[in-house]
C-alpha cells in the first residue's frame, strides 16, 4: 500500500510520467507491428541491434536533460561527440592497452573542459546558454576537422570488440547505458546537486536566496553533459572503428528532441530521465523502422519534426489541464 501511495505521489509530482508511459506504449506498438510485418525483424539478432543503435543517442540525451532541467541548453554536445571520435581515432589505434586507456582518459578530460567552458560562459560571462553553446559548438566543429580532416584513424580492435560485446539480447552498450542511467538518476533524485538543478531551473534568484550554490550547480550540469557526450563519442568510434569529424552533427538537436519528447520542459525546472531514455529510443526506433521499410531519408526528417511538434502539443495541453486542476 505504502508503495502504491509513493507511486501515486510520484505521478502527482511529475505529470509527465504518464506521458512517458504513453511513449513506451507507442514504442511497443511500433515494435510489435514491425515484428508481425517482417520475419527478419523479430530475430534476436535484429532486436539486439536495434537496442544497440539507440544507445548513443540515449547517453548524450541524459546529459542534455540535466542541462535543460537546470534552465540551460547545450547545443555543443553534437560537435563534442565529433571531436571525441576524432581524438579517439588519433590516440587509441595502438595495440598497447595503456595507451588505449590513456586515450579514453584524454577524451573524457577534453569533454569535461568543454563543459567547463560552456558553464563559465553561461555563469561568469552571463552569455545566454543558447549563444554560448552555439559558439563552442562552431569552434569544436573546426577543432574536429583540425584533428582529423577526413574520416579515418583507427580504434584498437580489441577495445572496440569489448565495448560492443553482445550476449543474446544483452549487449555491452546496453549495460553502459543502464549504468550511466542509474548513476544520473542517483545524482538527480538522491543528491543535493539534483535538487539544486531543479531549483535553479525554476528560479535562480529564489534558489540563491535560499542558499543554493547556483553557479556550482549549473557548472556541474554542463560538465556532465560534456561527459555524457564523450560516452556517446566513444561508443560511435568503437562502432565505426574509425574517427569521423562530422559524425556528431545530428546529435545536438536529436538529444534536445529526445529530452523534450521525454517530458522535460525547455523552460527548465521540470523533467525526468526515464522519459529522455524513452524519447531517445523512440527516435532511434522510428528511424530504424523507416530504414527497414526503405522510407526515403527526407521523410524521416519530416517524421522526426512532426513527432517533436506532437510531443510539444501534448505536453502543453497537459500542462494547461494541470494548472486548471490546481486552480479549481
Amino acid at each position, binding site marked *: 500500500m505504502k508503495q502504491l501511495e509513493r507511486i501515486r505521489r510520484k505521478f502527482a*509530482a511529475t505529470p509527465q510520467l504518464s506521458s512517458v508511459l504513453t511513449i513506451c506504449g507507442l514504442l511497443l506498438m511500433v515494435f510489435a507491428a514491425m515484428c508481425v510485418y517482417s520475419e527478419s525483424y523479430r530475430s534476436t539478432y535484429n532486436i539486439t541491434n536495434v537496442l544497440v543503435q539507440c544507445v548513443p543517442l540515449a547517453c548524450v540525451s541524459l546529459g542534455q536533460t540535466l542541462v535543460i532541467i537546470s534552465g540551460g541548453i547545450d547545443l555543443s554536445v553534437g560537435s563534442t561527440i565529433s571531436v571525441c571520435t576524432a581524438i579517439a581515432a588519433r590516440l587509441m589505434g595502438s595495440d598497447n592497452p595503456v595507451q588505449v586507456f590513456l586515450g579514453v582518459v584524454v577524451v573524457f578530460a577534453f569533454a569535461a573542459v568543454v563543459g567547463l567552458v560552456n558553464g563559465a560562459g553561461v555563469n561568469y560571462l552571463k552569455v545566454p546558454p543558447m549563444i554560448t553553446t552555439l559558439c563552442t559548438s562552431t569552434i569544436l566543429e573546426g577543432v574536429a576537422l583540425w584533428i582529423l580532416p577526413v574520416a579515418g584513424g583507427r580504434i584498437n580492435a580489441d577495445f572496440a570488440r569489448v565495448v560492443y560485446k553482445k550476449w543474446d539480447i544483452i549487449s555491452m552498450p546496453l549495460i553502459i547505458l543502464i549504468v550511466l542511467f542509474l548513476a544520473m538518476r*542517483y545524482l538527480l533524485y538522491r543528491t543535493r546537486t539534483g535538487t539544486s538543478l531543479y531549483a535553479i531551473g525554476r528560479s535562480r534568484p529564489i534558489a540563491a536566496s535560499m542558499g543554493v550554490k547556483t553557479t556550482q550547480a549549473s557548472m556541474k550540469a554542463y560538465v556532465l553533459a560534456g561527459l555524457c557526450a564523450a560516452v556517446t563519442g566513444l561508443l560511435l568510434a568503437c562502432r565505426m572503428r574509425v574517427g569521423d569529424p562530422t559524425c556528431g552533427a545530428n546529435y545536438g538537436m536529436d538529444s534536445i528532441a529526445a529530452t523534450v519528447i521525454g517530458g522535460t520542459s525547455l523552460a527548465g525546472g521540470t523533467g525526468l530521465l526515464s522519459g529522455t531514455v524513452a524519447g531517445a529510443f523512440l527516435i532511434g526506433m522510428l528511424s530504424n523502422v523507416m530504414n527497414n521499410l526503405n522510407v526515403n531519408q527526407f521523410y524521416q526528417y519530416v517524421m522526426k519534426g512532426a513527432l517533436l511538434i506532437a510531443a510539444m502539443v501534448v505536453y502543453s495541453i497537459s500542462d494547461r489541464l494541470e494548472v486548471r486542476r490546481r486552480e479549481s
Partner: protein
Amino acid sequence: MEQDYLEFLHITKRFPGVTALDDVSMSVRRGEIHALVGENGAGKSTLMNILGGNLQPNEGELRLDGQPVKIASPIDAYDKGIGFVHQESNLLENLSVYENVFLGRERVLPLGRTDRKGMCREILECCQRLGYQLEPEKPVAELNLAERQSVEIVRALLGRPRILILDEPTAALAEDEVARLFRIVRELRQEGVSVLYISHRLDEIMELADRVTVLKDGRLVGTLEREELDKDRMVSMMVGRVIEDIYPDRSQVQFGQELLRVEGLTIPGKLEQVSFSVRAGEIVGLGGLEGQGQRTAVRAIFGDQRFSQGSISVEDTPLKSGGIAGRIRSGVAYVTHDRRGEGLVLTQSIRKNSSLAALRRLCTPLGVMKEGEERAQVGKQMELLQIKASSMEELVSHLSGGNQQKVMLARWLMTRPRVLIIDEPTKGIDIGARMSIYQIIHQLTQAGIGILMLTSDMVELIGLSDRTLVFYEGRIVKELSRSEITEERVMKAASGMTEE
C-alpha cells in the same frame, strides 16, 4: 528580557531617485513581539530586507547582541539566526515541501545521498509542535497560500532563529489560521525569540504586539510601548503630511454622463462585489494598501483578467470578454505601473512606442503602416504632452522617467480612449514632471475623458481624485468625495477600521 538584542543604527537606504530609509534607528528586545507599521512606501519592507540580507544599507549599521554585524545575503542572515517569512511566497513550486524547507542545507548521508526520511521526520515533528498539517513529500505547487506560508515558517523555525521577521503574515489566512499563527508567535516569544511583525491590520497589532514602531516616508516617527498602544494614535502617527500645492484646481470641473460602470465584479478570493462608476471629466482614485484588489479590478476592466460574476460597461454598452484588443476598440486604455517591464519597448524609438496601441488606426486594410499619418499623430502628441526629446526617433531608454511616462500616455491617447486607467501615474519621477503629468490629466478630463487612477501615494490620491474608493481585502470599504477626504479617514478605511 529588557535588553536590546537587535539594534538598527542610523540606517539610510537610497534608491535611484528616492530615499527609502532616512536615518532610521530602532531597537528590538529579546523575546518581544515588535510590530512595524506605516503606509505603503513608508520603508517597512526595505528595513526588513536589509535585516534579511536582501539589501545593503548605504549608511548606518546593524548590531546583534551589541556587536556590529554585516548581513551579506539571505543565507548569511539565516546562519546568523534571522528567519524571514515573506509576504509573497518565496518557494520553488516545482519542488516538494521537504526540498523547499531544506534547500541549500540538505541533510546528507554517506555517498552524497540526501536523507529524505530524516528531513521529512524533522518537518513532521516541527509541524506537530506548531499544529500544522503538512505532507513533506507533496509538491509545493499543490499547496494553497496558507499552507505555503506554513512551509516558510517551518523553514525559518528549523534554523532555530533568534529573530523572526513576519511580513504581512495574515494577509492570506482564514480566522482559525490566524489564531494558530498568533499562538505560535506567542510561544516563540516565550522561548526568547524576537519577532518583527509587519502588518497593516491594527486590530491584530493591538492584540499581539509588545511594542510598535511607526515609519513614515522612510523616517522613524516613534516607538510606542505596550501601555501607550492606541489605534487612533497609531493612525495619526502614520499620516499627517502637507498636501503640496502642485495639484490642478479642480473645483470648477463639471462632470458629464456616466462613461464606465462596474457592477458586482467578483473574482473568488480576489474581489467581492465591486461596483462603481466613472463619469466624463471625473477623476476617480482607487486607494488602499497594496494588494487589496485595486489592481485586479483594473485589470478586469482592461480585459486582462477573467471574472466570474459582475458586469462592466462603457457608455452603456456592456463589454464582453474580448480581451485587451476588444477593450481598446471600446475606448478603454490602461497605462501600466510597470513602465520598464510591461510598458515600454525599451529598445525602440518614441515613435514606435507611441503608435503601438493604435496600430489598427494607423494601418491600411492590408496591414501596411501609413507612416506619414503615424509621424503626424505622434508629433501632435509629443507637442501636446511636451515630451522632451531630440526627435521622435530617439530611443525611449534614453529618456527620463517623466518623459517615458508621457510616451506611455501618448500611446494610449492615440487610441482615443473614453476611459483612461492610469496605474501609478507618477511612480519614480521627479516633481517637475509630476506637476506636468497632473496638468495633462486635468486637461484630459476637461476634454471629456473619464479617468480611473490607481495610486499608492496617499498625497497624490487626495490631491487629484474627485472621488476616492478605498479597497480593503477585495472590497470597496469606503467612498470619499473631495470635500470629505482626509488622510486619516483613508488610512483608517485602508486598515480595515470602521469609523465610529
